[in-house]
């Protein structure tokens, strides 16, 4: 057998609904969409160690070191990391690695909420969806989790859904962003 190193492939095939590919370089619009699906995702049924004070419970999200932890249902915490879920070869026995089960997209920019409100009925007002909020809801007619964690002062939303919907959802979001000259860009590798 030829010596081939396994390649992790995202569910997003880097083309939006109109066949436009992912851009590199500086974005021109007021919203950008990133495919963050290769980030690791670990599902815990108890708050990961060290997060009890920051992720107060259901509906909350927090950035800790290089990780993001959020909860949208009782007894469920999802830990996102730009790095492998098993740096030491193991994860907590109570945890399940769902990296491959989920697609993860990020929508950032001044018009991020205006983009999402075309396909999601959440109230994105700062009073009700502040940075640090997380909710399980419907986005573009599929079940998804919406996590707001602003980046460098810009509103930023992570959207997590079942992997098989990833390409569809990416297309729906980039299409919704058209009004704001939004574009899909390469993930910069940081959460």
């Amino acid at each position, binding site marked *: 057998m030829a010596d*081939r190193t396994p390649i992790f492939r995202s569910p997003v095939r880097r083309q939006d609904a109109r066949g436009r590919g992912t851009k590199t370089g500086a974005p021109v619009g007021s919203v950008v969409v990133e495919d963050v699906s290769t980030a690791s995702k670990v599902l815990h049924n108890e708050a990961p160690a060290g997060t009890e004070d920051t992720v107060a419970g259901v509906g909350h999200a927090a950035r800790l070191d290089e990780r993001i932890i959020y909860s949208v249902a009782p007894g469920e915490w999802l830990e996102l990391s730009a790095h492998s879920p098993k740096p030491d070869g193991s994860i907590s026995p109570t945890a399940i690695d769902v990296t491959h089960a989920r697609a993860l997209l990020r929508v950032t920019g001044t018009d991020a909420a205006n983009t999402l409100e075309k396909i999601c*009925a959440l109230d994105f007002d700062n*009073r009700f969806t502040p940075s640090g*909020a997380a909710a399980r809801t419907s986005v573009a007619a599929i079940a998804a989790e919406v996590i707001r964690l602003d980046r460098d002062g810009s509103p930023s939303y992570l959207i997590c859904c079942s992997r098989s919907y990833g390409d569809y959802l990416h297309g729906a979001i980039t299409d919704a962003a*058209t009004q704001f000259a939004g574009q899909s860009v390469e993930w910069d590798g940081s959460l």
Partner: protein
Amino acid sequence: MTARLPERPGEVIDRSSSLPFRWNGGDYTGMAGDTIVSALAASGVRVLSRSFKYRRPRGVMTADFNDPNCLFQVGDEPNVRAAHRLLEPGMDTSSQTSWPSLRFDAKAATQALSPFLGPGFYYKTFMRPRFLWPVYQRVLRTFAAGGKPSPQPGHSSPDKRYAHPDVLVAGGGPAGMMAAISAAERGARVMLVDEQHETGGYLRWSDSDGRLALADLRTRLAAADVEVLTDSVVFGRYDHNWVGVMQRSHPQGERLIKARAGVLVVAPGLIERPLAFEGNDLPGVVLSGAARRLLNLYAVRPGTRAVVLSANAEGAAAAADLADAGVEIAAFVDARAGETVVRAKGRTGVRSVELTGGKTVEADLLVTATGWTAPTALLNMAGVVPTFDPESSRFVPGEMPDDVMATGGIVGDGSVADLLSHAAAVGQEAARRSGHKAVHKAAAIPAAAALAPPSKEPVELPTLEPEPHPPLFIGSTSGFIDFSEDVTTKDITAAADEGYRSLELAKRYTTATMGPTQGKLEVINAGVAHAIATGRAIAGMGTTTWRPPYAPVSLGALAGRMLEPVRHSPLQPYHERVGAQPIVAGQWIRPNHYGDPAAEVTAVRSSVGVIDVSPLGKIELRGRDVPKLLELVYTNKWSKLAVGSVRYGIMCAEDGVVMDDGVTARFAEDRYMMTTTSSGAAGVYDWLEEWLATAHPDWDVRLTAMTDAYASMNVAGPESRALLERLVEGIELDAESFPHMHVRTGTVAGVADCFLWRLGFTGELSFEVHVPAGYGLHVWEALLEQGADLGAVPFGLEAQRIMRLEKGHFIVGQDTDGLTRAHSTGLSTLINSDKPDFSGKQELEWSEADSGTMLVALQPEDPAVVPPEASQVLSGNTLVGRITSSRMSPTLGRSICLAQLTQDHAAPGTVVTVHLPDRTRVRARVMEHHAHFDPEGSRLRG
């Protein structure tokens, strides 16, 4: 002849920008800011349309969105509200409902027959003889109103938006603007929706004081944090203040906004009401508001010599504006002094006006200012019951729910200052009420900070009463009440005389209020005419029901974005690259075949094939009580499933009907992986959760949906083991080390954490390989690459379905239905009645002796005939079952079937008849086994 006036203060046209356009084939020029109709009026065009029934000439009447005479064809867009739509360069516009031309309409001959064309004439006339109905239909269709839609598919998917304003103000007149400003100044998030192209309402076409007040309001509105949507309409109010807004001005076309408003403030102003008298539909008869709009917004003179019939200040103001514009006022008829108009005369336009007392005045313009209709539609939709106020001759709002308020003309009259004072208080109170809702909402959202509660004390609202107004509805001569539907005073009276004493029924009989204006101009006059005809007091007249939409909205815009979720396997890029024929399976897009399904079957039976089965439902179960759950949901025994083993089971609902099937593997003492059918995955997951949450919350079981976590591929065929041996590390694949119905974990093509189980749907030696999804495509490509010399091919759903039918495996939902209990599947051996309990046990025990039909294998005696699925199976002429699956078997060279038959016809060897769609019949024999091929399973266990 141009009717364009010199520059007027407050005009909205840009005289530096002339716009060429076409009207009924001729070339015209308007100005930026013109509506289509104002540009035509400025060009001296008076006749703009023909009426629906009698094809009477019609011209401008209201000069706004509601004008019933100004529905045009614009390009390929029919029914455009041309008195509202702004002119664009190069527009190709034309009239509708005229034949052969607008100037001469042959169907106007129907006017001569009007005595015979009263309400309901078509119900009565076209009943008999029945055989002529197709002829009637063709003729009547030529009278249908409306333009011609484009035969081409619609535009791209319309946009849609969700919004959550604290206060939504419907109406952008002075009161609506002030309510919005006031609410926003108190911190509310406000959306202001106005149907006009600019905010300001009647102040836009009023006098200098009005323009000054408007300028001040616009300055304050711009400074306030208010989202202003012009050329938009609130078309409906639904439960819990779900408010539908259609934003016509959106750059991507008409857009639906689903707004969940804290408080809805209804401020639509008033709609001017026409008076019913003979000739009231002639071109040149206009409402006072229309005259002022044409004069003051578009600098268009609507006539040269006018009669003004006035019952209010608006009529006097219109007369003043007309005089200022050089229009001769031939007569000012003061309705408050008891004077009125008897009839207007003319053929294609007003030539003279007959007044009370018999005096006739020559004029080409008749302006009427005879009262107002309160557009209470949104209030009615909120459950408010408006009442008719005889003093002001209009409806006034009744008691309102807390989340709906009203201000402006719909509430009462007064100076601009009076209206603004009331609106400011309403805005404050709306902000206060919505503030309380926001406090509760924030408290329910974990991450939201607590909001400071607003005052508990309501804002005191100043009084705003409607002013007295003469009751002017129906003149002394019969005139048009509904201009869209050509319904006259006489028609309403005739309907009442025929027994339609309910206004709702009379409405449907005459079609009054059922045209494009939907009652906005005619509902009061229709109600009054009906009250008079039925001898009731006007004050007690009923009203028709206002339903959404308040204004017309396109169906495409209501549909919004085309969100049709689809699911793709991790292997989809491969399928597309090689041109696999896709099939839609639920939301999944799957490869049905790669060109030749029969060849794919042969390849699998002779060497090896690989199929993408990623959509297979996968649920990980962890916890010490998983065996209890499995015992409960499957009909067979599970408690002794050994680690490393896989078992097949069927699941039944509590009525014993088969709901799903699949296999479950035991990876470790407390870790299992369950598979379900692709379509049943979500349902089974919910069902398990329900059992755990409601019946057994004490059980230690944790479920995780893992369908998407793995790319799943079944490697099937006599060479499958040989292929996998080239790629698998850490697993012994020989039959002794890895027997049928067992599971192993290991590395495949360099990808760790894969699991394999030995089973398959095809009846061949099979290994189902489950790979972490992100690496699925890598493993799939490696399998095909490494299997090339073995003849490995990809195979699709169709080949799999053929092979599973050859093997006699049933598919839940295809070979079973909503009545198929477990015994009917022929798998009674999988029903373990020794278990203390399982879902459906009791029903299955009761029905064991007779569970209705039985699933059997059936072979047509003519091997070339493949009865279509769902074909009826007969015994003699008695229906005894149906074909559930059928295919031509490439392996056996003959047709094969599964069928549901009644038990008395299910015994092996029974011969039945299959009724085919071409009415021929074929005899078929019930087989001994479900499996047509390899019933012993020797290939499977190899």
